């Protein structure tokens, strides 16, 4: 007899908090990319176990209470496939990890499939040109000025790359009633997030159902456009196909008795993170803006820099929530891209109601390719030079159908909706063979602007963000390592 699937509502305390919230109120952030040195697996596990036990890994339950009792700090831990192997996890034969995660974002196959050849990466999740694989990703968020949670991981155990946030990324501009996240080119960031069904109350999203909001019927009506089934982001729950998302397993998980849900597999309540460190060439963008003006820059992004949709007239006296700023479609108002060009960044990353035969099927199919973004702008000061960029993190449950599809078929596909250039911002390309450009339909006789490479990817990897019980299993002495005999680990190593 089959067992009933897990109920999302019963598992909030096993789901890492970052799936529920982007921690908008915790304005300082820091990311650690840790490579466990050879022979240091046991101390590494001990160090991680201590970190986990310190209670800083927020769960979705704590985050849910954040309206009334905001937490002051939060952290999340995720592992690349090589990291899981390093820490002693051995894939189950019947429920192995999906191929994209196992092969890693840094692999040659992914370089082709993600269309980012050639790569000159500083780090990745596989051993190779960019050095040793990153095994562990730790993200931490704290209130401004409180200082970091981790001072510095032990150098003898880990080699670490530290990515600090840009302290100026939360800014209050004219008309804002609070500080808002802005990326290095000056655009509002973190808008248009999917709302996970059954895990609402995100910090920026508020459903409008009450009587006093009845004049905002429009926003209410489009709210469903961004409600996405939990299985698109959290493993083990219903996804947009109304199926339970595939949960991989590791050896020893069942006998360990740590599973919260009877019969639940290792990956239940987990998620995959597609991580990229993307450097932004702010000087090049400023030069472009000086020549072409702000309106054209907004067209590249597809939104005004204050976050308002291009079609809306900015009205500082009538501030809108992020949820309201997401209540728009293209098909009826802007099918030809006269206002928001078809090739603009946001229209590529989330084509909303445009790609199918009709409105309903378009929205349905777009929901198969949504990403939950949890990245933050970063700043790096080295040799007297300041470099800015975004530490991009996208949570998804099916890497191939979500992150890789968006990257390969939408962002980097020059023939997306019959255009002949790829995304104005994402990735860089050879200006001789494949110049960056954007068509601007609807100007008197159409227009086209040539673009520089505004961004460069410095590194990337796929990480598995485990549920808290699985996290305990990975880092504890009694957990994964016990089941990984050295032969098994060797056989499973990539």
């Amino acid at each position: 007899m089959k067992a009933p699937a897990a109920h999302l509502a019963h598992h909030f305390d096993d789901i890492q908090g970052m799936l529920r919230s982007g921690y908008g109120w915790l304005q300082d952030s820091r990311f650690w990319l840790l490579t466990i040195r050879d022979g240091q697996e046991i101390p590494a596990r001990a160090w991680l176990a201590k970190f986990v036990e310190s209670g800083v890994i927020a769960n979705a339950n704590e985050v849910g209470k954040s309206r009334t009792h905001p937490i002051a700090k939060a952290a999340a831990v995720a592992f690349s496939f090589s990291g899981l192997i390093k820490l002693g996890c051995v894939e189950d034969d019947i429920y192995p990890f999906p191929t994209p995660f196992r092969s890693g974002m840094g692999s040659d196959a992914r370089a082709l499939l993600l269309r980012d050849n050639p790569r000159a990466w500083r780090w990745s999740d596989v051993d190779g040109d960019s050095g040793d694989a990153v095994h562990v990703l730790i993200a931490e968020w704290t209130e401004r000025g409180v200082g970091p949670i981790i001072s510095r991981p032990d150098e003898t155990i880990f080699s670490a790359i530290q990515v600090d946030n840009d302290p100026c990324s939360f800014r209050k501009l004219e008309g804002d009633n609070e500080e808002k996240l802005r990326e290095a080119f000056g655009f509002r960031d973190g808008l248009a997030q999917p709302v996970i069904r059954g895990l609402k109350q995100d910090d920026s999203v508020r459903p409008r159902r009450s009587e006093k909001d009845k004049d905002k019927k429009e926003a209410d009506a489009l709210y469903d456009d961004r409600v996405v089934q939990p299985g698109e982001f959290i493993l083990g729950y219903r996804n947009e196909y109304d199926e339970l998302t595939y949960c991989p397993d590791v050896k020893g998980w069942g006998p360990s008795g740590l599973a919260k849900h009877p019969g639940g597999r290792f990956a239940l309540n987990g998620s995959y993170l597609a991580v990229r460190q993307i450097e932004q060439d702010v000087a090049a963008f400023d030069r472009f803006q000086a020549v072409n003006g702000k309106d054209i820059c907004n067209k590249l992004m597809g939104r005004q820099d204050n976050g308002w949709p291009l079609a809306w007239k900015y009205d500082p006296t009538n501030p809108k929530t992020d949820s309201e700023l997401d209540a728009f479609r293209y098909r009826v108002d802007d099918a030809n891209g006269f206002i928001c060009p078809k090739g603009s960044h946001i229209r590529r990353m989330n084509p909303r109601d445009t790609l199918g035969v009709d409105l309903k099927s378009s929205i349905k199919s777009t929901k198969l390719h949504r990403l939950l973004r949890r990245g933050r702008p970063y700043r790096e000061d080295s040799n007297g030079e300041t470099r800015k960029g975004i530490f991009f993190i996208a949570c998804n449950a099916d890497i191939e159908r979500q992150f890789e599809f968006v990257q390969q078929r939408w962002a980097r596909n020059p023939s997306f909706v019959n255009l002949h250039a790829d995304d104005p911002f994402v990735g860089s390309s050879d200006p001789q063979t494949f110049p960056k450009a954007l068509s601007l339909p609807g100007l008197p006789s159409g227009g086209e602007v040539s673009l520089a490479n505004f961004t460069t990817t410095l590194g990337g990897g796929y990480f598995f963000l485990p549920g808290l019980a699985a996290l305990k299993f990975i880092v504890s002495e009694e957990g994964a390592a016990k089941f990984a005999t050295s032969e098994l680990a060797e056989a499973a190593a990539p």
Partner: protein
Amino acid sequence: MLEIVRQQMICIVVPGWNGTTDLSEDSPVSTGLYSLFRDVEVVQFASIALLPARADAGDKRPLLMLELAIEEGIDPYDMLYRLVYHWSEAMWSLYSSFWPGDATALRSERNDKLHKMLMKHLSIADGGFIGARDRTARQIEKEQELLEWTRDEARAMKQAMLYGHDRSAFALALAQRAFQNPRFGWALDPAPRSYWRGKGASISAKIGYVLTLFVLWLIAVWLVGAVPRGALGVYTWLFGPPYSGVTDVVAFISRASRWVLGVSIRSVLALLGFGVLVWLFLIALPALSRTWRRWLESVGRELDRPTDTWSSWLTYRIGLLLSVPIAFALVALAFAFIFWPSTIVDAYEALTAKFLGWQIIAFVILAIVVSVCAVGLLSRISQDLAKVGNWFFQPYEDNVPRAQQVDPSIENSEGLVVRETAHMVSLTDLRSPNGWSAWWIRVSLRIVTLFGRVIFTESRLGSAPGIHFGHWHIIEDGRRYLFCSNYDGSFGGYLDDFINGATVGTNLAWRWTTLKPRKLAAVGQPAVEHARSFPPTRFIVFRGVKRELQFKSYARDSMLPHMFRFDARKESVDQINLATRLRDALFGERNDSNDDLIMRAIES
């Protein structure tokens, strides 16, 4: 009509490949084939893959598959003749290993032998679909040149600030320049369109065709009876009555003809009756009644639901209980009406003899009231069940083992063509009994092909876009099933389009297949270590592919990498269509819609 589509997509599957020929990208065989296909000009797409032998096959060597998608109207015999007897002898260099040590034989003899063998192993598609049809590779190339020329010209005109802000003037100027350019003389003729995309595109043409065929049939049947009758009459008038045997034969023919006429007409009436019922319950009632619409939607959703829930389980079981007897009753009624109409008349007379008119009317009204109440009760129960909520809709664990796994060879061949048209070769086994499965698949594929040819003429099969060629073959005497397709996009996206846009067709095409374990065809190629089955369907067309995880895993495991690939044109189907539309707009009538099309083409 279907033949013309089917023979455009052919596969030659030759058993006993010994694997000595080098097919790597820069090998002489590959480059030779590449220039051969370029040279003959009518091959739009070609690929070579190795099919591993069946586990129970006597010959364990793999089979060599050559897939060809060629232009319309070419007989496969002629096509192969053209390829085999080409001066470059590229085909011989591919197949020469089947005759080791025979390279010195007379060239014509060799080619005869090869042509004969290829014809023996030729399989034209059992069903197929072509996205950008009616276009030759040469035409696609020329139209693409026109599109690029137009974009460049527009760029230059914009820089020269010639036409200010007027889109129509701009479009007119572009059209004039294109018209005056001697390079584009060929574009003066409108782009060719086959009958079903051209004159036959309207629904009335399609209905007209069917009606005409039916009327012609009736006339033919009538003539079969009437001509002997007339001849007999004339003979009798001239010479008096003939032998009684002749009269009997004529009378029999005449009766038979009348009987066939009656059956034909009643069959059509019965079909119309079914049509009215379907229209009433699936179109008219949902449009009128919100409750009915919701109920219908929820039944469809539950039947399609990929996971096991009580809601889905109950809907399916109740559906079976209700629909099977009703379907049987309707079919029995229809047969009685068609073949023994008198039984119905007799029954009616018996009924009126027993009951008075008002009693019958009252009974009918009562029956309607009872069924409305029953439906109301059922929907009430289902609503209450829905309110009970969680347990009713809560899915049960569904274990799809080894999901989301891709063989490195498949991933590699997908990665290499990520900037071009994607391609998949899938090889599965027919479910036993093979003959039964093969028959059903053939019928289903003919339906899919017919719909693809006649109705889905604008590059979308159902609502699945981006298919260049997709074709299915039943090979090895009905033991195995081969699907080859080249398409725009990625494997996952392609299957998503099928799952959501062509559920019925995909279920029909695949549901009689399964995947048995098999060894790898060559080093570095995928093997099937664990059997898989196609996700189970309900009422033949529901569920099935809606179980995304199982369907994608099934398709992934059945895939084989290509060893050679030739694509005459790299444009996507949408780009091909855009260029053709631009050609027709530039050289067509000057009107607003054409002007707009030109401007949109250059702005894209």
